[in-house]
């Protein structure tokens, strides 16, 4: 146990130094590190609880997706019935099912066959699953039931999440923050983490808006105050203005003239006459053509710009707008005009998103946590170091060197992994300091015992190491299992704790098996002691 070959010794020292050296980039400012080669730039990332930032978990409104899917199916069924001359028919929606009763005496075989065509195989060509998007049942007597299958809904939610992630990325990037992360979580969730944000309120507003923009005509056949009392024409709906317009009611036609998809650009600006903040936009060719046509036919009538079922403004068309560009004004502030432009450029979300969890830490609190964490680390380490020296003298010194190298190695490995350090993570490091000396204590106590049992110094040290190492391995594995479970179930800060705890256990076992042994072996070789000073 005490003899370590030259090569092994070199290997141990080299490994230790390399791992410790990985921690170096953390001690230089980012601007300095940026000029280093790429491989040398790996460093510890501070968690949101330390650098400040927002953690926001969003959920796609599965019900809205479901409803949209069923409405689409209903429209499809109507189309099939119309195209195949099966009407007059009765189409109703019940839950996930569209029920169609076709004209009496119509060819129900043909109807079934045509309706069946609405059902597509899921998963595309690459991964044919045998599942279909719609179940079609012939209930007899000319009644057909079409049900959207669960896999089809899940698939649609999945797609909605994918699209949403792209759109959110565009929106968040416009905020100009450093390294935001946006990732899918589970089936219907999106986790957005944005570090170092001054105003999470603005981020939340940008995330929470569906940003479904439509240009529609105002229905002049019914005055708004009559519609409020419940007399809304069937092809129109009652919508309200924004809060800044006192929530004024409007009767708006359901038919959309141009939608947000046809926008190619949107920029904030100022109105040349009133110098109010506005958003100017441009349509693509298709949108421009339709908008031109609608404005030509409706000069003198008001049209409405509707965002997420809220009327932003309803100007009167003074002349046909044929250039395919225009501007939206609506009591904007500079920031709200800017945000609307961002939303319009990024596009509409396929379904509404709801914030189901938010954790925001201000940068000031984060800095406080760092300061306190570092202070506690120093005090804790110092206390342990003094205690170990008082208890074991020279051997305590060995233990202390091992512990310090241990911490340096933890930082090195965290850097290598680009791991995130959280406040509980700092706790994990301090705890590791407390528990890492345990391996030395186990070895030293065993040596003490062997000395008491009457062995010579060398013999006792040798036996102490041999017997203690097995125990060290056994006892650390239990803690490692705990850390692994925590890593598996934890998120954010707790996961940070699991990471440092787990890495701390690995480095502890490593230093116990190599460094402490090396130090004691060298000491024995140079001093040839006859008694063990512990």
């Amino acid at each position: 146990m005490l003899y370590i070959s030259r090569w092994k010794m070199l290997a141990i020292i080299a490994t230790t130094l390399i791992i410790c050296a990985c921690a170096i980039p953390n001690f230089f400012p980012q601007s300095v590190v940026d000029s280093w080669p790429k491989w040398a730039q790996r460093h510890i990332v501070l968690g949101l609880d330390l650098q400040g930032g927002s953690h926001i978990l969003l959920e796609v409104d599965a019900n809205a997706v479901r409803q949209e899917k069923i409405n689409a199916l209903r429209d499809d069924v109507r189309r099939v019935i119309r195209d195949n001359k099966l009407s007059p028919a009765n189409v109703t929606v019940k839950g996930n099912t569209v029920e169609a009763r076709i004209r009496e005496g119509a060819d129900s075989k043909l109807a079934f066959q045509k309706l069946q065509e609405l059902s597509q195989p899921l998963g595309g060509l690459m991964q044919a699953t045998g599942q279909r998007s719609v179940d079609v049942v012939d209930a007899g007597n000319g009644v057909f039931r079409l049900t959207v299958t669960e896999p089809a809904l899940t698939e649609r939610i999945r797609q909605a999440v994918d699209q949403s992630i792209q759109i959110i990325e565009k929106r968040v990037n416009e905020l100009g923050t450093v390294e935001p992360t946006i990732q899918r979580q589970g089936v219907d969730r999106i986790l957005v983490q944005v570090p170092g944000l001054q105003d999470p309120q603005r981020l939340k507003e940008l995330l929470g808006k569906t940003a479904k923009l439509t240009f529609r005509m105002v229905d002049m056949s019914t005055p708004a105050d009559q519609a409020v009392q419940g007399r809304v024409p069937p092809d129109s709906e009652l919508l309200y203005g924004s809060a800044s317009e006192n929530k004024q009611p409007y009767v708006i036609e359901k038919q959309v003239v141009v939608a947000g998809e046809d926008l190619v650009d949107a920029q904030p600006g100022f109105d040349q006459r009133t110098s109010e903040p506005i958003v100017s936009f441009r349509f693509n060719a298709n949108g421009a053509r339709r908008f031109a046509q609608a404005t030509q036919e409706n000069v003198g009538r008001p049209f409405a710009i509707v965002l997420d079922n809220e009327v932003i403004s309803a100007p009167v068309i003074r002349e046909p707008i044929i250039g395919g560009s225009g501007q939206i004004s609506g009591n904007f502030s500079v920031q709200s005009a800017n945000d609307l432009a961002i939303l319009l450029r990024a596009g509409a979300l396929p379904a509404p998103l709801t914030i189901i969890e938010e954790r925001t830490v201000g940068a000031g609190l984060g800095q406080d946590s760092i300061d306190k964490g570092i202070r506690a680390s120093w005090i804790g380490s110092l206390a342990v170091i003094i205690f170990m020296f008082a208890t074991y003298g020279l051997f305590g010194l060995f233990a202390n060197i091992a512990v310090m190298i241990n911490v340096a190695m933890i930082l090195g490995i965290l850097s290598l992994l680009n791991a995130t350090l959280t406040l509980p993570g700092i706790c994990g490091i301090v705890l590791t300091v407390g528990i890492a000396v345990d391996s030395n204590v186990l070895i030293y106590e065993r040596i003490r015992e062997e000395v008491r049992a009457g062995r010579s110094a060398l013999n006792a040290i040798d036996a102490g190491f041999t017997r203690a190492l097995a125990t060290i391995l056994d006892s650390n594995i239990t803690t490692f299992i705990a850390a692994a479970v925590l890593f598996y179930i934890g998120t954010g800060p707790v996961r940070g704790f699991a990471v440092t705890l787990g890495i701390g256990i690995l480095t502890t076992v490593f230093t116990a098996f190599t460094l402490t042994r090396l130090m004691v072996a060298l000491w024995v070789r140079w001093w040839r002691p006859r008694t063990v000073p512990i």
Partner: protein
Amino acid sequence: MRIPLLRIVPDDTKFDFMRFRRISFPISAILSILAIVLFFHNGLNLGVDFVGGTLLEVQSKQGPADLAKMRSTMSSLELGEVQLQQFGADTDVLIRIPQQPGGEAAQQEAAAKVRAALGYGIDVRRTEVVGPRVSTELLAYGIIGLLMAVCAIFVYLWFRFEWQFALGAMIANVHDLVLTIGFLSLTQIEFDLNGIAALITILGYSLNDTVVIYDRIREMLRRYKRMPIADLLNVSVNSTLSRSVITHATVTLALLALYFFGGHAIHAFTATMLFGVVLVGTYTSIFIAAPILIYLGVGLGRQEADEGVAKFEPETAKTKAAAKPATTKPATAKPATSKR
């Protein structure tokens, strides 16, 4: 000049820990029952993570925070029972808003209302809003995690030791968890995700200690085939006593540093750890985990010397231990390697 080294535990202690089991087992049983009663009577002070709602940490920009004024502002918002609590410095206040009826979006609205009502003199340093769905999930994850940790460790111990040891360690550890939960219930320390982390870590550390003692017991079982089991357990615990105490001293030092200097954010976590690892963990491994092996029938198959005739003397065993390996020098490593 040589300064004598610190010896907390003198050499060659011969405490009869096994006899103490007649006191420690009933005490533990009573404490465990008390803890369970407390848990069902008082419950835990579950944090936002598990019950949902909103937590705001705010700081007054000028001078100490006016709690009374904030309280009246909050009650005018009609958000249910809003709790305000001084948090560390007198400028800092923790505001807890209960879960609002009306689903996920209602929580965000409540948080926004409170932010607006607080006005400009107040800096919001931390916001946590957890909706009803997430809080339910987090609680489920926490409980599953705890059970997973218990099972995984049990399986590991079962592979590594005989089943009696695995079972003994698990009883000892469930006992630790029960007492710690009782402590949380008694003190009403806020229990959140960090609390779950603390419980699982306590499980790991307390087992760490138990495993060290068990390792020694196993070694002794192989070496002294005729020693009565109670004596064997006593020798094992006594010979690892110094290590137990010193290790717990260092862990305690680290935890105390965290508790006193690490800031308020980790108070609950470190307090739980201090209780679980330092107070309960040490006691358990010595007074519960080791003696329980007697009841679980460890070493039953061995031919024990008749207790009345040849009472075990630690001295003779030790000289034997010293004499045996010394005669065959290269074989010093044997007892350790043959263990595996």
